[in-house]
C-alpha cells in the first residue's frame, strides 16, 4: 500500500477521514489503524478462516476508497433498481438510503421523532448526539477483534445510528436500502442500534448492486444493543452483483429478558463473509438467529456464527439453511458457548444444506463448548439433495420438473422466513430466489 495515493487504504486516508472529527474519534481511528497494521491478514491456517482463502479471494491493495461526491437526496436521480427495491416494501417507520457508501437520505415518522427516536447518518449523529456515539461506537465491535474489525473502525466513511428510547415501540420496521456502483472500490460503514429497555424495533438493511467489472469490497460493522426487556429484530439482505466481496461483522448484546433476533439473507456477491456473534448477557435474554442463502455460479458464502451464553436462563436458537447450485460453495461454522454459571440455558443450532448440482460443495462445522451442566443444548447439521419423493409427488400432480424443484427448494428455505415473517422481506426474498432458480436447468 502506497501512501502517495490518498485514495488507497492507508494511514493518509485515515487522517483525511478524521478531518473535522472530534478528538476521541480521531484517536479511535488512529488506534484502529494501528491495530490493523499490527494484525496479520487471516490465512486458512486460522480455524475461523479455514475454508475462505483471502490470499486468493481478496486483494485490498488493488482497492481505492470512494471518490465520488455524495449523491443528491432526490429519488428521480437514483438508480432504477434502488428505487424498485425501495418501492417493493415502502411501509416503514423511517428510511435511510445509502448510495456509494454515503447516506443520501433519511426520514423518520415525526411522531417517533417527538418520542425521542433517533434515525440518522453517523455524521449527523456526531453533531447532534456525540455523547451517545462516544459511549457506544466500537464498544461492541472493537478494533481489537480482528483485521477487518480494525480496518472498518479506521476507515468507515458513513453509517447509521438508530436509537429507541425507553418503552418506545415502533410498529413498522426501519428500512435501509444501499446501492453500490463503483468497481474497484472499498466501502466501509457502520451500524449502531441501541434499543433502550422495553422498547421494540425491527430493522431491515438491504444492499444491492449490478455486477462489477473488478473486485469491489464492502465492509459493514454492526453493533446492536438490546437493553432489559426490549425486542429487536435485525435483518440483513445481501443482493450484490458478481465481483463483490461482502464482509459483515455483526455483534448483538442481549440484556435481561430481551429478545434479540437476527436474519441474514445471502443471495448475491462473489464472496460473502458474515461473522455474527450473539451475546446473551442478561438472565432471561433470548436470541433467534436465522440465516438463508442461495448460491449459484461460483459464489462463495461463509457464515461464522457464535452464541455466547453468559448468564442463566438464556436461550438461543440458530437455524441456517441454504441451497447451492452451479459450482457454488458454502461454509457454515457455528459455535455455542455456555459459560460457567449460565445454568438453565437452552441453546440450539441447526444448519441444513441442499446441494442442487454436482459442482456444489459445503463445509459445516457446528461446534459446542459447554461449561455448565444444567443445560439443554443440541446441534444438527445435514447435507443432502432435493427430496426426491416430494419432487415426484409434485410431478405426479402435473407439475413439470423445474416447477416441482422450485417448490421443494422454496419450501425448504421458506422455513427460515416463516420464523421471522417481516412484511415485505418474505416476498422480496422469495422473488429473488425464484429469479435465481429460473436459471437452474
Amino acid at each position, binding site marked *: 500500500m502506497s501512501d502517495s495515493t490518498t485514495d488507497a487504504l492507508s494511514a493518509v486516508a485515515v487522517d483525511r477521514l478524521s478531518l473535522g472529527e472530534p478528538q476521541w474519534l480521531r484517536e479511535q481511528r488512529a488506534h484502529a489503524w494501528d491495530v490493523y497494521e499490527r494484525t496479520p491478514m487471516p490465512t486458512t491456517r486460522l480455524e475461523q478462516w479455514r475454508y475462505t482463502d483471502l490470499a486468493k479471494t481478496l486483494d485490498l491493495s488493488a482497492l481505492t476508497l470512494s471518490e465520488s461526491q455524495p449523491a443528491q437526496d432526490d429519488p428521480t436521480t437514483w438508480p432504477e433498481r434502488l428505487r424498485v427495491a425501495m418501492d417493493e416494501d415502502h411501509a416503514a417507520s423511517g428510511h435511510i438510503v445509502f448510495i456509494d457508501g454515503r447516506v443520501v437520505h433519511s426520514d423518520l415518522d415525526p411522531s417517533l421523532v417527538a418520542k425521542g427516536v433517533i434515525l440518522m447518518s453517523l455524521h449527523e449523529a456526531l453533531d447532534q448526539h456525540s455523547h451517545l456515539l462516544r459511549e457506544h461506537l466500537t464498544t461492541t465491535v472493537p478494533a481489537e477483534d480482528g483485521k477487518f474489525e480494525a480496518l472498518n473502525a479506521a476507515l468507515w466513511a458513513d453509517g447509521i445510528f438508530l436509537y429507541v428510547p425507553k418503552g418506545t415501540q415502533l410498529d413498522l420496521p426501519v428500512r435501509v436500502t444501499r446501492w453500490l456502483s463503483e468497481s474497484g472500490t472499498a466501502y466501509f460503514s457502520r451500524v449502531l442500534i441501541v434499543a433502550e429497555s422495553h422498547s421494540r424495533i425491527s430493522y431491515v438493511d438491504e444492499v444491492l448492486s449490478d455486477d462489477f467489472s473488478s473486485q469491489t469490497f464492502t465492509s459493514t460493522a454492526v453493533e446492536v444493543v438490546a437493553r432489559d426487556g426490549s425486542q429487536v429484530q435485525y435483518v440483513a439482505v445481501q443482493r450484490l452483483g458478481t465481483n463483490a466481496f461482502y464482509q459483515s461483522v455483526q455483534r448483538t448484546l442481549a440484556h435481561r429478558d430481551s429478545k434479540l433476533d437476527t436474519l441474514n439473507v445471502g443471495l448475491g456477491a462473489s464472496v460473502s463473509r458474515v461473522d455474527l456473534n450473539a451475546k446473551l448477557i442478561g438472565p432471561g435474554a433470548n436470541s433467534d438467529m436465522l440465516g438463508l442463502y442461495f448460491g449459484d455460479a461460483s459464489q462463495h458464502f461463509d457464515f461464522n456464527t457464535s452464541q455466547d451464553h453468559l448468564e442463566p436462563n438464556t436461550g438461543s436458537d440458530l437455524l441456517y439453511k441454504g441451497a447451492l447450485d452451479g459450482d457454488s460453495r458454502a461454509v457454515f461454522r457455528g459455535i455455542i458457548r455456555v459459560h460457567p454459571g449460565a445454568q438453565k440455558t437452552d441453546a440450539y443450532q441447526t444448519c441444513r444444506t441442499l*446441494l442442487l448440482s*454436482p*459442482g456444489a460443495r459445503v463445509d459445516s462445522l457446528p461446534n459446542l463448548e459447554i*461449561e455448565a451442566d444444567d443445560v*439443554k443444548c443440541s446441534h444438527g447439521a445435514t447435507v443432502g439433495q432435493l427430496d426426491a419423493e416430494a419432487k415426484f409427488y409434485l410431478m405426479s400432480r402435473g407439475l413439470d420438473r423445474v416447477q416441482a424443484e422450485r417448490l421443494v427448494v422454496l419450501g425448504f428455505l421458506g422455513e427460515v422466513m416463516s420464523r421471522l415473517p417481516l412484511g415485505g422481506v418474505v416476498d422480496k426474498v422469495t422473488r429473488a430466489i425464484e429469479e435465481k432458480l429460473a436459471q437452474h436447468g
Partner: protein
Amino acid sequence: MPVNETVGDLNLDEYKYDFITTSEPVFRAQKGLSEEVVRQISAHKDEPEWMLDFRLKALKVYESKPMPKWGGDLDGLEAVLDEIYFYVRPQDQMERSWDDVPDEIKNTFEKLGIPEAERKVLAGVGAQYESEMVYHSLREEWQKQGVIFDSIEDGLKNHPELFREHFGTIIPTGDNKFSAMNSAVWSGGSFVYVPKGVSLDTPLQAYFRVNQERMGQFERTLIIIDEGAQAHYIEGCTAPVYSTESFHSGVIEIIVKDNARFRYTTIQNWSNNMYNLVTQRAIVGAGGHMEWLDGNLGSKLTMKYPSCYLMGEGAHGEILSIAYSGDGQHQDTGGKVVHVAPYTTSSIVSKSISKGTGRSTYRGLCKVHEGAHHARSNVECDALLINDTSRTDTYPYIEIEESDASVGHEASVSKIGEEQLFYLTSRGIRADEAMAMIVRGFIEPIAKQLPLEYAVELNRLIEMEMEGSVG
C-alpha cells in the same frame, strides 16, 4: 524399582554384548529422546538396516514438528518428555512386586472381580497367567489357517516382506508429531495377518499376547485383513492400567481389504497422570467393513481419533466411542470418516460422560470427496454432564465435495434429569446407584456391542465412579 543405569558412551557392540549376557543390573536407555537412544532401541531389537533408517528419519521429523496447538492442553508435556525413558527392555518392566501396586488399584481390581492371576498381569507385576494355555491352543488353530498373530518385533523378523509392504503406509511418519515420535521409538504391539477368506470366531486378544511381553509405551500395531477375511481384535481392559509412566503414544495401522470385515475393540483405563496420544487409522477396500469400538477412561489427557478411509466402492466404516472424564481429566476423542469411493457408508456414535472437573471433547471429521457419489454418513454425539464444574465440547468437521451425498450430524448435551433421579430414589434406590443406572442406560447402545466380560467390567466401573457422586 530397577536401578537407573545409563549406557553412556559404550559403543554398540559392547552394549549389545552387555544386553545378551547381563540380566543384572537392569538396563534402561537414557532419559529423553536422542539419536543415541533410537540407535540403541534398534540395536536391541536386532533390526534390519532399513528400520534403523526409518527410525532415524522419524526422529528428525519429530524434532522438526511443533507441538500441536489444538486439542488438549499439552503445555506440561515437554517437561514430562524430558524425564521419561523412551525405552525400557520389556522384561525389566515386570520386575515390580505386587506390594508396590497402590491399594487404590488393588481395590479396583477386587471390585471389578478380576481374578488374582490377571490382576498381577494388569498391574505389570505378574509373569504367569492362566489363559496362556487357552492362548496356545488358539494359536495352534490359527496357525493351521495361516493366521499370524505375533508381537510387532516378531512380525518384522518373521514376515519381512509383508511387514515392509504395509508398515507406515497408512499412518506415515510425518502424519503428526506423535506418529513421528512413535515411528522413532516404537516398541511392542501386535502384528496380525488374516489370510483371504479366513474367518475367525474367537477374538484375537492382545491380552493374551502382552502377557508374554508387556505392551510398551510406544506400541505399534499393524493389522492386515486380507480379502473376504473376518476377525475381531481386542486390546486393553477396563481395569486401570497401573503404570508409573506418564506418557503413552501408540500408532495402530489397519488394512481391511475388499469384502473383509474387521472390528478393533479397545477399552483403556489409564492412570490419572497419563498423557495418552494415539493415532489409529484403517483403510477399507471395496465392500469391506471396519468397526472401531473405542472406550477411553482415565488418563490426564487422551487425544485419539480412530479413522476409516473408505477407499473402495461400498466400503463401510463405523466408530463407536465412549469417553469418561473424571476430576482433572480431559478426553479429547472422536473419529474420522473419509469417503473416497461411491456408495460408501459410515456412522459415528459417540457418548461421553463428564464428572467433577472432567472435560470430554468430541472432535470429528466427515469428509466426502468428489466422486464418492451416493455416500451416506451419520454422526451422533451425546454428552452427559454430572456436575456444574464438568465441561463438554463438540467440534465436528463436515466437508462435502460431492452433491450426491447425504450426511447428518446431531449432538446433544444433557444432565441427569432430576425427575429420573427422583423416580428411582423414591423407589428406594440409593441416589448413587440410581445415577449409575442412568449412566449405564446412557452408554448401553455401545456397551451392548462389547464382549460380555468387558461390558460387565464397564458396568462395575461406572458404579464405582458414581459412588459419592451425589452430594
